[in-house]
């Protein structure tokens, strides 16, 4: 993960102490706090419209300005945190679980099943990532649940490859041999002995994958195929503001900055975890 590595390298230089894990946790904790507390700290309702306050530039009452419906951008960015964090977590959890199981079984069982699954991965990788995802969304119909399903169907390949390679390198180690000679079942060896040791690098990858999932989710929503308006999601907000870009720059600018800031938090966390666990995918 060159991206996160270099983010961390800069983090170490810029930040005193240079603990990227802490920085990542602090940024993410701040976002999680915003997501939890937004009903109380958001100054306005994210979807209530105010015909007297449309397209106001940033001012003391509306620090991020208002959009064409008079909705407060700051409040919408805050409420959007809930949706976009959810996109990251669900969008990573499904591929993680699916890919881990497939990769572990494929690597442990080997043989024809392994060959078949690896060919399937080659085929999925032959498609441009976003295009395959859009094709699946096309069949399921636009919406955020379609995005999650598409993400699971496309994203599992990275985890499967990663876990498979770990399992392959671990399965002939002495402790597995020992477990075998104790007569443990294959399921027990695979899920209680191999997997815990194989997971470190895919957990680190999952953190940096959050960045990719966040950007994909926001892009799909921007294209009108993911989260649907009037829900306050950052990609949707950018799309809604694009029509007013000549007169009201603030509608698109602030949600985009929020995406960048959240992505940075995940990058730092991924790298800090990578250092801690000694695992780099």
């Amino acid at each position, binding site marked *: 993960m060159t991206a996160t590595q270099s983010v961390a390298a800069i983090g170490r230089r810029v930040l005193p102490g240079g603990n990227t894990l802490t920085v990542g946790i602090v940024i993410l904790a701040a976002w999680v706090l915003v997501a939890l507390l937004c009903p109380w700290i958001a100054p306005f309702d994210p979807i209530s419209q105010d015909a007297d306050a449309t397209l106001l530039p940033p001012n003391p009452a509306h620090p991020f300005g208002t959009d064409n419906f008079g909705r407060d951008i700051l409040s919408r960015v805050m409420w959007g945190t809930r949706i976009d964090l959810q996109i990251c977590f669900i969008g990573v959890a499904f591929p993680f679980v699916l890919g881990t199981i497939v990769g572990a079984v494929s690597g442990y069982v080997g043989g024809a099943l392994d060959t078949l699954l690896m060919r399937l991965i080659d085929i999925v990788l032959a498609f441009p990532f976003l295009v395959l995802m859009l*094709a699946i969304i096309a*069949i399921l119909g636009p919406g955020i649940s379609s995005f999650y399903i598409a993400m699971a169907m496309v994203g599992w390949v990275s985890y499967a490859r990663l876990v498979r390679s770990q399992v392959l390198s671990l399965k002939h180690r002495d402790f597995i041999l020992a477990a075998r000679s104790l007569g443990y079942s294959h399921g027990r060896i695979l899920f209680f002995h191999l997997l815990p040791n194989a997971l470190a690098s895919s957990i680190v990858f999952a953190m940096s994958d959050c960045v990719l999932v966040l950007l994909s989710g926001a892009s799909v929503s921007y294209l009108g195929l993911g989260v649907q308006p009037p829900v306050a999601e950052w990609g949707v907000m950018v799309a809604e503001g694009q029509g007013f870009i000549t007169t009201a720059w603030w509608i698109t600018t602030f949600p*985009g900055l929020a995406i960048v800031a959240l992505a940075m938090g995940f990058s730092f966390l991924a790298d800090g975890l990578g250092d801690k666990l000694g695992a780099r995918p």
Partner: protein
Amino acid sequence: MHRYRFVLWRPFQLLPVLFGISVLVFVMVRSIPGDPARILLGVRSTPQAIARIRAQYGLDEPLWLQYFYFVRNLLQGEMGKSIIYRVDTLKLIDSRIQPTIFLVLGSVLLAVLIAVPLATGAARYRGRLADHAIRLISTIGLGLPAFWLGIMVILLFSISLHWFPVSGYGSDWAERLHHLFLPCLTVALALSAVLTRNLRASLLMELQNDYVTAARARGLSENHIFWRHVMPNSLIPTINLLAVNIGWLIGGTVVIESVFAIPGLGQLLVKAIISRDYMVVQGVVLVFALATVAVNLLADLLTVALDPRVKL
């Protein structure tokens, strides 16, 4: 010329992947709920047309035979009709492919033009301020959502400075170049972040090689060593990186075409999804997948041509 023998058999190696792509697309289109004939023809279709489509795609036959008909139709360039535009999908794709190709080529060109000087600067002044600054810039470039970056670029160059048009494609070559510059720049900024990082790393690796020391011992100038020896060797992994990123690049153009309203394949795909024009979705997805496979094959070829040590 036995080094190039793989040119002949490599395409055969790709057959399983091509087969897989066709099966995947076939399964995807067949899993759309509803009568496939109506999906192919749209809601308002005559019984005669439905009967004709049923025969052409073998919709009353078993599934494996349907797949056979699907592939046969594909090989004959028959991808069905667009319900919305009422033309053959292949014709539609043909009329939309040009902007996308230029967008991809222009983005790669601009990305290389941005990345090579930056990576050179970072590698030659390693550990100094220039290196840190360049790495910081390329890191920020990676975290930016492309659609948002595009709008920010419009805000700066089109709306504030009036240098470039806000969106669209233009009718003659000069206009098209003018229209495509900002979209290319947007994709290139994101791509050059990856390229800079990678090229810098491979330049630093090359600089440690013995042949660099030998060249210095022979009294060659640093510039000569860098540009004639180190740079060509460092470009080979970068070409592979470009090929690996072609899928990402195509995904980027899908989004960017929508941001800048460029009438290319990406915008066609997004509009087809929204209007449930499934034959167009199928066609564009197939073209994008084939292009990805083809570009990777081309990169293999280029690597062999550039590096005599590599045999495939």
